[in-house]
């Protein structure tokens, strides 16, 4: 279960090649890639600040949680920080499981955690004005839904 925080771009293709070649028992591999969007056409760049002492451990912790919860054979999280141009990949997640539903759910769950529990903050810089991206209530709601699901299964 590996997790990496880095400023440099990552090579999605090389990461997936390594990930898939290390998978032996899984019939299902899911990947997610988050890309810097420029909805208004005016974004100069995105700046991602993070909490260096905490991010690596947090990512590893989320990957371990997802691995246990969904019985994943393998999970990978890579998240960048620093300055990113529109179109650049911000982060990626990959999961491998015997069954496809677990691989999908594991990746989705990891994303929900990253969105609202990993210590990263995004700032959008456009024509000299800079705005911190607001967190979304729907991200919190998405995360809460996993707890409800667990509670329902246990009852």
């Amino acid at each position: 279960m590996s997790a990496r925080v880095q400023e440099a771009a990552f090579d999605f293709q090389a990461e997936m090649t390594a990930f898939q070649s290390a998978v032996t028992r899984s019939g299902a591999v899911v990947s997610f890639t988050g890309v810097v969007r420029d909805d208004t056409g005016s974004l100069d760049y995105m700046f991602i600040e993070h909490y260096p002492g905490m991010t690596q451990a947090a990512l590893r912790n989320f990957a371990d949680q997802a691995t246990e919860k969904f019985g994943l054979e393998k999970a990978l999280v890579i998240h960048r920080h620093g300055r990113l141009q529109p179109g650049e990949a911000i982060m990626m997640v990959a999961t491998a499981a015997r069954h496809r539903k677990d691989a999908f759910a594991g990746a989705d769950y990891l994303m929900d955690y990253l969105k609202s529990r990993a210590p990263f903050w995004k700032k959008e810089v456009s024509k000299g004005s800079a705005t911190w991206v607001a967190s979304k209530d729907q991200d919190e709601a998405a995360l809460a839904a996993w707890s409800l699901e667990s509670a329902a299964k246990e009852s």
Partner: protein
Amino acid sequence: MKLNILYFAWVRERVGQSQEAYETSAATVADLIFELVARDAGYAAAFVDLSAICVAVDQELSDFTTSLVDCREVAFFPPMTGG
């Protein structure tokens, strides 16, 4: 006790620094915030809306009631927006 306090994103911008060593006898995160907001307008602005403030104590997500006993590092920041 001496704490290392870290600030991130717009909390950092309003406070005006990214970290500081701070001597305090605050028992909880809430006590610490009350001390900080009394220091100057930058801190007051950073903590004006406590519903928008998250805290990590020794790099674990925590809340305002968390004890600072034996704590070495406290970080304040807005809700996280990774992914």
